[in-house]
């Protein structure tokens, strides 16, 4: 286990491909529609070359934020800067950003090549240059040879590539993607995920994506911002979001989690202890929590970080926790076999149910446990995340 602290951030990670130059910055941006606040005082910076994802449930304001950047909505308060310049006065057609729309918005009455050429024509680019750039763009999205087709002769995935080529051909400073994969079927979505990443690496343009799908954000983005009810909750790399959520909302929204309410009983430099009424044993942590003793906290425990042992004799001892801690007993109540792994639901002694996953390492692993079997659940001292809000 590498030493990590809960305040681990992007700057600590030397492997990050991000250059330290803010290309977009939102400064205290608020957007109100009548009385409802769609975006609430958001301050956020996106660096050059990032693949940035805005993640959140529907109606959290992420699309509004993107549309303000594109120029389709004006902020009620605050400033939006691109390359250090306030873009408030620029209409959408003058902004150095281009967007891939959720419906792709490919012009249905134009050939593929005319769709891609449209933006260049509007910019007054010369005819020959348009031709070569359109061909390059179609090559880039693997649609070479499709220039003469009409959009209704294309599949959904191909239409999305047209929308991508159409936006990229203008070489924008930032490419905006509004729920780019939501309209594709599962197989194609997986394929497009990796294609989007490699495309971004190839063109070197900053991408900013809006999505409600946490898997998508974790898989593609170099950095994510989680939004909830117009407020920016956490901005971090995908791994940090998952392993070090800063709130119950983030822990619950990103991935699957077991959450226990408890009281902070001990908080030292190198260890902390939380007593949760729903768990028969105290939760021991190998790092300190910056919270007041006696405060109410929440322990978030990811299902895959819980080990399951057969209940034969004594409770197993976790080597990194004092005896009797981080181990609880329970009974298997539900088993869902998913092929690569099996999901278990275990009823603890107090009646609380806990989820855990178990990889099927051999072909007989799924036969190890059965319904109503008593088991021990145990976890390492570094696994739980303690949340103060």
């Amino acid at each position, binding site marked *: 286990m590498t030493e990590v602290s809960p305040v681990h951030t992007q700057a600590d990670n030397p492997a990050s491909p991000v250059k330290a130059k803010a290309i977009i910055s939102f400064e205290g941006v608020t957007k109100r529609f009548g009385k409802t606040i769609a975006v609430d005082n958001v301050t956020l910076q996106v660096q050059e070359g990032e693949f940035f994802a805005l993640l959140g449930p529907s109606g959290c304001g992420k699309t509004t934020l993107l549309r303000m950047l*594109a120029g389709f909505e004006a902020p009620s308060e605050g400033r939006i800067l691109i390359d250090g310049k306030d873009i408030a006065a620029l209409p959408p057609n003058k902004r150095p950003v281009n967007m891939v729309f959720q*419906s792709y918005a490919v012009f249905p009455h134009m050939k593929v090549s005319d769709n891609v050429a449209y933006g260049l024509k509007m910019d007054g680019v010369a005819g020959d240059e348009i031709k070569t750039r359109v061909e390059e763009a179609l090559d880039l999205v693997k649609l070479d040879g499709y220039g003469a087709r*009409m959009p209704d002769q294309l599949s959904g995935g191909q239409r999305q590539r047209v929308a991508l080529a*159409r936006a990229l051909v203008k070489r924008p400073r930032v490419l905006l993607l509004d729920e780019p994969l939501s309209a594709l079927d599962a197989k194609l979505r997986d394929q497009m995920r990796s294609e989007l990443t490699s495309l971004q690496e190839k063109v070197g343009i900053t991408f900013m994506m809006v999505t409600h799908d946490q898997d998508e954000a974790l898989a593609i983005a170099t950095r994510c911002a989680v939004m909830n009810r117009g407020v920016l909750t956490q901005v971090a790399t995908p791994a940090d979001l998952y392993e070090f959520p800063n709130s119950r909302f983030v822990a619950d929204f990103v991935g699957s989690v077991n959450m226990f309410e408890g009281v902070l009983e001990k908080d030292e430099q190198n260890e902390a202890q939380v007593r949760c009424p729903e768990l028969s044993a105290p939760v021991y942590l190998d790092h300190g929590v910056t919270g007041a003793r006696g405060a109410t906290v929440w322990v978030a425990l990811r299902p895959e970080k819980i080990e399951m042992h057969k209940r034969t004799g004594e409770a197993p001892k976790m080597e990194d926790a004092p005896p009797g801690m981080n181990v609880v007993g329970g009974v298997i109540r539900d088993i869902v076999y998913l092929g690569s792994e099996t999901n278990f639901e275990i009823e603890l002694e107090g009646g609380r149910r806990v989820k855990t996953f178990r990889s099927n390492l051999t072909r007989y692993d799924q036969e190890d446990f059965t319904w109503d079997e008593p088991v021990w659940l145990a976890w390492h001292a570094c696994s739980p995340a303690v949340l103060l809000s």
Partner: protein
Amino acid sequence: MAKEALPVAAAAVSAPPLKREKPGPLEYMRRWPLQLMVGLTLFFLYLPLITLMAFSFNDSRRNIVWQGFTFKYYEKALNNDSLIEAFVNSLTIAFFCTVISVILGALAAVMLWRFRFPGKTAVEGTIALPIVVPEICLGVAMLVFFARVMPWPQGLPWPLNLGAITIAHISFAFPFVATVVRARLSSFNRELEEAAKDLGASEWRTFWDVLVPHMQPALIAGALLAFTLSLDDFVITFFTSGPDTITFPVKVYSMLRFSVTPEVNAASTILIVVTVVLTAVGLHMQNQKPKESKA
């Protein structure tokens, strides 16, 4: 026993192909009530038209008994200067009415679809008014209007002398265009407009490059409607036309007052052919690029 059983078995084998299957639950076209209705509709709708066309070739002054085939009355109709003048007048009025109605109707539809403004519901209602107001009322109103409120100058050179009729026709034809275009616009994906602007198009370019192509089928349908409404309008035209601004329907009516000659039949047949051909051309233009009409 065996002797008798044999023919029965044979009959059973040969029976199914002879007996028609009973109509399925949704095959209404194979049941008599709907078949009867379709038959009656075709009979009353098309038989008069076919009779009219057939008797335009009848070699008889009286239009009752078939005397023999002739083109004589077509010749007569085409040599009837006042009839030709009325026909040209009608086509001219219909042309201007169509062009102006399509522009006005499309703009009205875009306005109602796009903007929110005080009194929008009232505007929406009044625009549709000419569709529901009885034509006779509109005709009388137009008569009074052009006689008292805004008299159209007399003695203007052709085609300016047709102005009053054209204005009257536009006023009842453009709401139809607006209604058709408005319906079409509701299927427009607003993201297309945003995409055009995002790619650098101005408001004006966006309108022409994205919105107009989407409206195109409705514009053609609206134009056809406006054209035929204007071409065959009698009531309103009757009240607004003067002695030197006779249109085809009014002329036919005045000819009928003397006698129903095959000349009227011939002229009507020409009108029917013209309208059918124009409609076919319009529909063909609409179907030529079916990809475009899909949103």
